[in-house]
């Protein structure tokens, strides 16, 4: 199969037709990423989604730097004031502005996605690449490791890890200071440690396919070592999987934060959409719907954007999988 393709490629390149030459030069000018970007640009909804994600990221960053909604803790009106021209999303129990809490919550949502990805990607890519590349006992050990990990339902693992980390409140606040948000820290670690398995599987499969391809053999013939072959040649060819996976990871992380808040394992020192939705347990019966509504809208928009972006990225970066979900 592979040989057949190569022969066709060579024939195509040597084709005397001028038209083919022209196409070849056009294709040559575009790198893989530029090509993917052009494909992504065709999809207007995906571009809008990307803009929404970037907008949320900027809002999150600004509020983390204290430039936006830093005064969320300020009492602006009476307790549970309904939405009005003064307070767009009403006020909470303590009379704080719900709109400010929503903006400040963006910081938690985006950081949960980002940091859990930063934990999961090195583990998943590192183990997956080693398993796929070295094969043999390395592969078997790593497959055993992730089979073990994935045998326990992820919600149980997520819960247990977050729970155990929170039990170390005293020790951790000694290291990081009294103002350190142990809840948020637990959410980061628990999400990061539970979400690498899927990525690891994908990377392992893809590296396995690539390691016997001609370009890797060529690198081998030129005297490239394992590290060089793996990092310089194979990994750049599987980067798209990491990008698609990260888009998925963000929306899973944002949704999991809500569940962890419900279990009492969530963020405590600052507003988050999870705690706001969770507060609605008591508030709804009193007719107070605005915290729930505000946080749900904010979450819906960004998770939807990540969902659409994830699909579009897959179509753009991995056209073989087009239409599959």
């Amino acid at each position, binding site marked *: 199969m592979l040989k057949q393709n190569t022969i066709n490629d060579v024939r195509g390149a040597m084709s005397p037709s001028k038209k083919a030459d022209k196409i070849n030069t056009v294709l040559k000018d575009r790198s893989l990423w530029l090509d993917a970007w052009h494909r992504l640009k065709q999809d207007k909804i995906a571009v809008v989604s990307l803009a929404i994600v970037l907008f949320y990221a900027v809002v999150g960053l600004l509020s983390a730097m204290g430039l936006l909604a830093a005064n969320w803790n300020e009492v602006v009106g009476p307790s549970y004031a309904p939405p009005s021209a003064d307070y767009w999303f009403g006020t909470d129990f303590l009379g704080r502005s719900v709109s400010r809490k929503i903006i400040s919550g963006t910081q938690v949502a985006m950081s949960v996605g980002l940091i859990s990805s930063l934990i999961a990607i090195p583990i998943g890519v590192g183990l997956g690449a080693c398993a796929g590349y070295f094969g043999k006992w390395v592969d078997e050990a790593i497959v055993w490791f992730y089979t073990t990990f994935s045998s326990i339902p992820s*919600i149980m693992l997520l819960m247990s890890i977050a729970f155990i980390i929170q039990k170390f409140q005293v020790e951790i606040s000694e290291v990081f200071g009294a103002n350190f948000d142990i809840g948020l820290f637990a959410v980061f670690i628990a999400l990061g440690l539970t979400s690498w398995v899927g990525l690891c599987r994908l990377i392992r499969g893809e590296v396995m396919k690539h390691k016997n391809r001609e370009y890797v053999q060529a690198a081998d013939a030129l005297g490239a070592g394992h590290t060089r072959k793996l990092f310089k040649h194979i990994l750049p060819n599987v980067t798209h999987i990491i990008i698609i996976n990260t888009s998925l990871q963000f929306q899973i992380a944002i949704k999991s934060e809500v569940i962890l808040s419900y*279990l009492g394992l969530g963020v405590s020192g600052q507003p988050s959409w999870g705690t706001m939705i969770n507060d609605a347990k008591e508030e709804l019966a009193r007719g107070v719907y605005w915290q729930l509504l505000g946080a749900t809208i904010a979450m819906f928009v960004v998770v939807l954007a990540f969902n659409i972006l994830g699909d579009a990225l897959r179509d753009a970066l991995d056209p073989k999988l087009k239409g599959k979900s």
Partner: protein
Amino acid sequence: MNGNLNYIIRRLIYLIPVLLGVCFLIFILFNVVAPDPVNMMLGKHPTADQIIEVREQLGLNKSLPAQYLDIVKSAFTFDFGRSWATKQQISTMFMNGAIPSLTLTIPAFFIATFSSIIFAVIVAYFRGKGVDLFIRVTCIAMMSISSLVYILVFQYFLAYKWGLFEISGYEYGFPNFLYYVSLPILIWVVLSLGPDIRFYRTLILDEIYQDYVRTAKAKGLSERTIMFKHVLRNAMIPIVTYTVVQLPFLLLGSLLLESFFSIPGLGDMTISALNASDFPVLKAMSIVSAVAYIIFTLIQDIVYTVVDPRIKLQ
């Protein structure tokens, strides 16, 4: 067939290292990393005698390898000892919790799977047309809302405001439980529709572009015959195997739904154990779910060969 048998035996043997790994993970989490539970149980100022007594009761005075062996033993005998919080035998708690969980999850799972397949067939039949786009967009939109929001809103409107369902609670016995589980079932179905329809649609579309479908079309068969007699039958192979792996999770119930609606099932039990720092119950729950998961993935592989003779296990 001989190759298949060999494969199954090898898979059965492979269960052992995986199970040992699961036990090791649970051991690391709860016996090594987790802080000493004695302090949590005895409050702030326990006497030295109390501490020694409790440690002995919990088996914490043993060496770490011995504690690990205890966990491994429990994974094979299903004897998990007693709960720290309720002092009941954990195996009894499992028996009691399984029934309410299953009354919720089994109907919910079947309704959800059946309706998702129907929607997926419709979507695949009208692929690329307006209906397809509409259902796909609705699916993604539905998946973008937190499950907790569904629970809160459905309970508020359907049960609290309009009184169509019981707000929460549970009763044993055949028609009685239905009043309490029907709203959680409805929420479960709504929650699964989005991801399931998307997934089944992909499986069906994978079949639609196969050669045999083209042959059937060339023969002059109608779209409908092709869809139901050819495509759906073949797509049932991945669909069935996909549903098989989900079965063990039915036994475990639904953490969120059960605790929210106060249904005394295994999910609710787990959440209570979490709130009470009841390690043995959490460990038992993790082990039981892992064992169930491992066994059902094996069953999935076997089912695969039974329904699809093209697949040879190696």
